[in-house]
């Protein structure tokens, strides 16, 4: 039975210090509100997993929540660098963050293996790159049928996956649509999951092309209107591109960043 919880309770119940936590959402439906709650509750030593770390992980890293980052592309899309991520990697501020980096195809297949209950996935990728040398959880493998050399990537099994969706019903069945990214795989790969939603409705109206997560794979649902802002929720609000642009200046400076976290999240850095 899915628990319908206020967001602070859901984060307190599901996410502990030292956990491996994946917040997914490919540009669309990024669970920002949940990320902010993790910062407010001062979670520490997290292994943060996410294909595109984006601004939400810039905030978590800058606030000192991360011990390790598993990812494939860490930038502010269309804008430039993630300055808190860079400051942690280049200068160790606020602390050193260990990196495990992949390609998008590698990360997507790692989630798919986790969701499939397999120890690894196979793809044609990473060949000839230095990623192969630098990254654990990637290894060459020979096809037993053709002898082709392919690449194996280890399954990802987060302790907790957090995603944002448009709607859930009162039983905790979840529906999301538009760009659905890798959310289904990330939820099914995880030991437990939290879904924040724009709306809780009496009945989910079927939508062509929507991903539906039945309540029995969803640990908890929290009602968070605008919980994906400044990313977007298709059919509800658009991506706040101005915020992504503004983040560049806020995040460039440690003081400005700490001030923003204090002012907007009521949390100390």
């Amino acid at each position, binding site marked *: 039975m899915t628990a319908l919880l206020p967001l602070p309770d859901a984060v307190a119940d599901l996410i502990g210090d030292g956990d491996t936590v994946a917040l997914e959402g*490919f*540009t*669309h439906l990024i669970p920002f509100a949940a990320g902010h709650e993790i910062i407010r509750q001062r979670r520490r030593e997290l292994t943060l997993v996410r*294909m*595109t770390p984006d601004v939400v992980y810039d905030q978590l890293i800058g606030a000192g929540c991360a011990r390790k980052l598993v*990812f*494939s*592309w*860490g*930038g502010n*899309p*269309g*804008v430039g*660098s*993630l300055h808190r*991520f*860079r400051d942690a*990697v*280049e200068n160790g501020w606020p602390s050193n963050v260990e990196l495990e*980096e*992949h*390609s*998008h*195809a590698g990360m*997507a*297949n790692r*989630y*798919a293996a986790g969701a499939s209950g397999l120890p690894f996935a196979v*793809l*044609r*990728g*990473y*060949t*000839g*790159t*230095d*990623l192969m040398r*630098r990254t654990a959880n990637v290894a060459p493998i020979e096809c037993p049928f053709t002898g082709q050399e392919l690449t194996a990537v280890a399954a990802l099994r987060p302790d907790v996956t957090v995603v944002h969706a448009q709607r859930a019903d009162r039983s905790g069945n979840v529906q999301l649509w*538009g*760009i*659905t*990214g*890798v959310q*289904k*795989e990330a939820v099914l790969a995880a030991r437990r999951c939290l879904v924040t939603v724009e709306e809780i409705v009496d009945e989910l109206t079927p939508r062509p*092309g929507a991903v539906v997560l039945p309540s029995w794979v969803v640990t908890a649902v929290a009602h968070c209107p605008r919980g994906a802002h400044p990313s*977007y929720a*298709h059919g509800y609000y*658009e*991506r706040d*591109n*101005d915020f*992504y*642009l503004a983040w560049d200046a806020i995040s460039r400076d440690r003081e400005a960043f700490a001030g923003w976290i204090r002012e907007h999240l009521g949390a100390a850095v």
Partner: protein
Amino acid sequence: MNHTTEEMMTVAAARALRDGARCFVGIGLPSTAANLARRTHAPNLVLIYESGTIGAKPDHLPLSIGDGVLAETADAVVGVPEIFNYWLQAGRVDIGFLGAAQIDRLGNINTTVIGDDYRAPAVRLPGAGGAPEIAASSKEAIVVLRQSPRSFVERVDFITSVCSGPTTVITDLGVYSPDGDGELALTHLHPGVTEQRAREACGWDLRVPRAPKRTAPPSEGELAALRALAPRRKAAT
């Protein structure tokens, strides 16, 4: 009409996309050029973004590769594992269109770190994203980047991506492609660019043909279409 070197680079990149091709579009300049091509000579260019949007027809330039306008105008929206496995890896993409921070003499691409020490880099770049598989699995690759001795280097600090098929590199100074032995060589100089300038902005002893071709300057139509795309984009640069 006068044009900037950036505009020349974008127009040259757009021209490299033939009508009807299926093009996997990276973020930034590739997206601008691909959308310009669709508005000029290649109205049937199929734009594929790694967010899972196939056949996107945005009416303005998206800031990210996952803006809502891409999903709203796409022929199909699929998940991220599917876009990489079924569509890219299986060989359904004609042209992989990428940006880069560094490219080297042998055409290796770096978008990961600048500096000798991976663990303590001088500059931490965003990383691989979709590029390794876009470069390896597309039938051909086009790479766009601004050219300087820091971006055109003898050897990249980190090999993020390796292009496996025919490759064209387009910069603000000219156009390059690999010779038979794999070394990048100049093929075209953009208007007003001297051979000397191209050599100075290259970190290795650049091969230049006896009479490099000249890129045609942007037409009025191309520039007008590019500038009409620009307003939404301006805020991002």
